[in-house]
């Protein structure tokens, strides 16, 4: 009797697990069904490498947005990753217990701030600052990168901290016993040993940056042209969908779904790389 109840319960949970999977399937199928026709019509090469995006004239080229996505994400990684690594090393190796108990939840709180708040803060603080001190319209790749760098901090910090904490204590003790200094231990022993976890953390952080939409729409300027400098406005794949979905219909709407397909593939690839790295460990 008890066994049956158990089985029934486990079956219930199995069904619920299945429902999340089916949500993924439904969304994936929907995006592809809606988006593929326009890619077929325009041609994969023309769609991905096309320079002109003018749906009202039937021109659908998303190359400037791919470059926009890559440059904003790269910028965010260049700013965010070193900071995040330093913080996670500080948390695991240097921070006194009291500091740690304050710092760690504070960083988690960063993850809880809605992205529209980040965007609004960026628009009213970062954008005017860039405009005043560096020139240009302020709405720029630099502004987007700065905002995203802050937004990906919690992801990278917490995952790399976990992987540093997971290292056996023997590593550190052995290194110190051999006469290595604390810093030598960190940078020659601990970081290389936790490398795969840290790499996964960075890739997941980058995945977050690629997928972020709202904050980026507000500070990036959304121009559909290849940026010439980090002070130029740009558009990412996500913001293309976010900014134009309100009025899009027909082929234009399909093209936005097609943008989603490209984004989907990019993020899937990134996540598989992250999974692969973690599993290799």
């Amino acid at each position, binding site marked *: 009797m008890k066994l049956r109840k158990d*089985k029934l319960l*486990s*079956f219930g949970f*199995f*069904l619920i697990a299945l429902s999340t999977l089916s949500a993924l399937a439904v969304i994936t199928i929907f995006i592809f069904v809606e988006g593929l026709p326009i890619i077929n019509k325009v041609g994969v090469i023309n769609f991905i490498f096309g320079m*002109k*995006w*003018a*749906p*009202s004239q039937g021109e659908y080229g998303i190359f*400037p947005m791919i470059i926009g996505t890559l440059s904003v994400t790269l910028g965010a990684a260049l700013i965010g990753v070193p900071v995040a690594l330093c913080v996670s090393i500080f948390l695991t190796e240097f921070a006194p217990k009291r500091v740690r108990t304050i710092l760690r939840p504070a960083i988690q709180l960063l993850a809880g701030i809605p992205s529209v708040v980040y965007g609004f803060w960026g*628009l009213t603080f970062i*954008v*005017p600052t860039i*405009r005043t001190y560096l020139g*240009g*319209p*302020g*709405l720029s790749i630099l502004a987007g990168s700065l905002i995203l760098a802050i937004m990906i901090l919690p992801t990278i910090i917490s995952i790399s901290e976990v992987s540093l904490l997971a290292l056996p204590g023997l590593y550190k003790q052995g290194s110190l016993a051999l006469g290595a200094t604390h810093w030598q231990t960190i940078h020659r022993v601990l970081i290389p040993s936790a490398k795969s976890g840290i790499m996964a953390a960075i890739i997941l952080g980058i995945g977050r940056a690629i997928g972020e939409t709202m904050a980026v*729409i*507000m500070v990036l*300027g*959304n*121009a*559909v*042209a290849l940026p010439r400098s980090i002070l*130029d*406005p740009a*558009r990412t794949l996500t913001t293309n969908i976010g*900014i*134009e979905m*309100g*009025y*899009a*219909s*027909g082929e*234009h709407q399909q093209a936005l779904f097609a943008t989603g397909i490209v984004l989907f593939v990019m993020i899937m690839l990134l996540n598989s790389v992250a999974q692969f790295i973690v599993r290799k460990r």
Partner: protein
Amino acid sequence: MIPLKFIDKKVRSVGRFISFFVLIFVLSLTSGCSGAKSVGIIIAGSTSVQPFAEALAEEYMRLNPGFVIDVQGGGSSAGVMSAKTNTADIGMSSRNLKDDETKLWSVEIARDGLAVIVHPSNPIQNLTLKQVRYIYSGVISNWNQLGGINKEIHVITREEGSGTRSAFEGLVMNKIDINPRSIVQDSNGTVRQLVGDDAYAIGYLSLGLLNDKVKAVELDGVKATRENVINGSYNLSRPFLFITSVEPKGDVKKFIDFVLSEEGKRMLDAEGLVTFDNGGTQ
């Protein structure tokens, strides 16, 4: 691992489980439909017209207690489409009907002017239509080419598909592309905010949404005012249309009559739009 044998035994209950959800789904759909019927009138379309339609609907519902009007956005194209397919009783559009859409019934409830705006500190008072076109196509890129200071112009436009943008393209650009390097924003509000913050920016928005944070420039020497839109001397204006699939009757006709009545016109006038003496059908 999935307990295969176990699933085999339970297939029937899975079926029951699924049919239960299907039942709920279908029920929610049908109840949704019957709910929509009791709404009265659904109006959908241009987000430029939406706030005005909402104000009118609110007043109409106050005058006719128990009657419900549901106003939704979606954009001009969606508005035309929803009138055509009868998903909405009235579609809203802030652009004229295209050639393949003229079979629909439509009425211009008001006219909206577009204002070209700059920062209040900008010394430039007047631009020609041609100059605006050159600024937006990228031919003119510095304010000193227009007699202003030696600073790059920060051009702000609206997103593809926006009624305001297509009105601007039709009225100003004369089939020339807007420079893709222009900054794109997705609402009148953000355009106004950015131009108000940036001394070197230029943008455009609905005349009714002007405020003192930005300055509307004169076009070819004509001020962007209501009066000039009515008398036709100010060129940048666009129609606000109500569209139905067939000649309206019943509740829909009553509401449209209200919108075109003195009362409705007074409200639209008060909101900054321009109305006519004869809201002529097209």
